[in-house]
């Protein structure tokens, strides 16, 4: 076919919506509204900080291609904005137990079910599979899996949910005794923080068949922080 001169517009820089946050809400968070700013909790700040940083750098990268052409300088290597979210952000999401703790190592939690069932990890639709131990007889739908940012080993003969909410480096954690509601004793439920085979601290939770139903907690403290730095919550169902 003879060469035809075509007039084709440049493709757009983006090709997908940005679903991470909404301008209205994010903008209001940084608006000149004293009451809003004052009400921001510590966790808020970290969350907004990261959102803002990604927003700024992504906008910059998007404009990079345009800018490159506008000046006589060769400019950047002309990369348009990253349209699809890199895999690493998925991991970010998995271990976003504490955005303020910059120095926590980030990796998927390993869980050892007492029954020896194969450790199925990954996603099933919207749900993260394999972050808690099921007893083999449990047929109920998965309860809330909460990703932890510390290696977690759960050894249990009952259906449990375990979650860890804490800040600070794992190395600095001290774990208190496990207690039931209103300080009652926690028979059959224990949690321990000890170095694992590779030297890193591992949180081990054990639940015996004799454990009663209920919610048990163990407080995490740090030498340099006043008051509790977090809590391990074990819910026996």
């Amino acid at each position, binding site marked *: 076919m003879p060469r035809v001169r075509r007039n084709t517009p440049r493709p757009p820089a983006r090709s997908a919506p940005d679903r991470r946050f909404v301008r209205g809400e994010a903008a209001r968070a*940084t608006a000149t509204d004293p009451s809003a700013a004052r009400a921001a909790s510590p966790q808020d700040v970290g969350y907004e900080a990261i959102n803002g940083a990604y927003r700024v750098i992504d906008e910059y990268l998007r404009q990079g291609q345009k800018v490159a052409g506008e000046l006589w300088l060769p400019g950047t290597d002309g990369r348009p904005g990253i349209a699809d979210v890199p895999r690493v952000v998925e991991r970010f999401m998995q271990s976003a137990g504490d955005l303020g703790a*910059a120095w926590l190592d980030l990796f998927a939690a390993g869980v050892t079910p007492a029954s020896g069932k194969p450790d199925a990890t990954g996603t099933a639709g919207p749900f993260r599979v394999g972050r808690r131990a099921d007893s083999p007889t449990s047929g109920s739908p998965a309860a809330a899996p909460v990703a932890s940012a510390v290696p977690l080993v759960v050894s249990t003969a009952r259906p449990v949910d375990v979650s860890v909410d804490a800040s600070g480096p794992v190395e600095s954690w001290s774990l208190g005794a496990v207690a039931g509601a209103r300080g009652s004793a926690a028979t059959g439920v224990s949690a321990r923080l000890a170095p694992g085979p590779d030297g890193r601290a591992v949180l081990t939770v054990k639940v015996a068949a004799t454990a009663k139903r209920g919610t048990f907690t163990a407080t995490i403290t740090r030498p340099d922080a006043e008051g509790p730095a977090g809590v391990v919550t074990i819910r026996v169902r």
Partner: protein
Amino acid sequence: MSNALVRDLLAEYGEATLTVIRDALERAARRDPVYGIAADYPLRGGRALRASTCIAAARAHGATLDTAVATAASLELLHSAFLVRDDVEDESEERRGRPALHRIHGIATAVNAGDALTVLGLAPLLENRTLLGTRVAFRVLEEAALMVRESVEGQALELRWRSDNALDLSDDDYLRLVLKKTAWYTTIYPLRVGALIGARGKVDVARFVRFGFFLGAAFQIQDDLLNLVGDPARYGKELNGDIAEGKRTLMLLHLLRVAAPAERARLAEVLRTPRAERRAEAIAWVRERMDHHGSIDRARRHAHALAGAALHEAPGAFAGARAGRDLRFLQSLPTWVLERR
């Protein structure tokens, strides 16, 4: 502990870079005394963070120290040039524990010395042609041109804020400024050219931008914090100097947003007065208000969050790097930037 590794490599690569710089300065001083004056800042010492990042990135991608050190030296010289310029434009008093260059020699001479540093900084990039081959050397030059451009535009933005007495800036505005003025030449550029040198040009430098930005931003916020709460003997600039010069830090921007109307009016007034007329007690009042409104704690958390984001981006940024000391150094930087004093 990883911080020890960082300290060791900073010392090692810093020393290697300083040797090259010293050599270049001595040779240049024989041509004209301005280079002697210009030598002041580079030889005052410093952390050599930029040079080390550049060398470590280069080595982690396969280069030797010798192929990378010239570019590292170039960067430190350009860094000094930026510092001379910044100190003049910010009317600073001190730099690294001693008087700022223009206080010693006057503004005109200092500006000229800054230009001299720029000249010296470009020379190694040209010498790269024999070291790295024309193609890679040219890529490095392109990167340097981009980096300098970002730095200039960043400084221009900050100057406009000051001359317009901008009071309604958001955290995003601050981040944009930091990206251009600081992160590009402190972290993004050294990573990019280091990788280019190490991989002989066969690397996609776009992958370093996010990590470099988050790291550089955390670094800068920490720097701003140290200006308020650091140990003056180790920090090297006068405490609260940023308030004195009306620098738009995260803390100041937060304070502007949360201050009660009367406080805000007073704050605006303080910022409007020329630096020379700014009274010590006004500066102290601003500092106290920042404490009162939690601006400092908030900025600290902000820095932590950004360092965390840098850690997240690290695997993607360094996917093509070799395991070893240099890679560990780079991966330890986000933690290190927060814990330095």
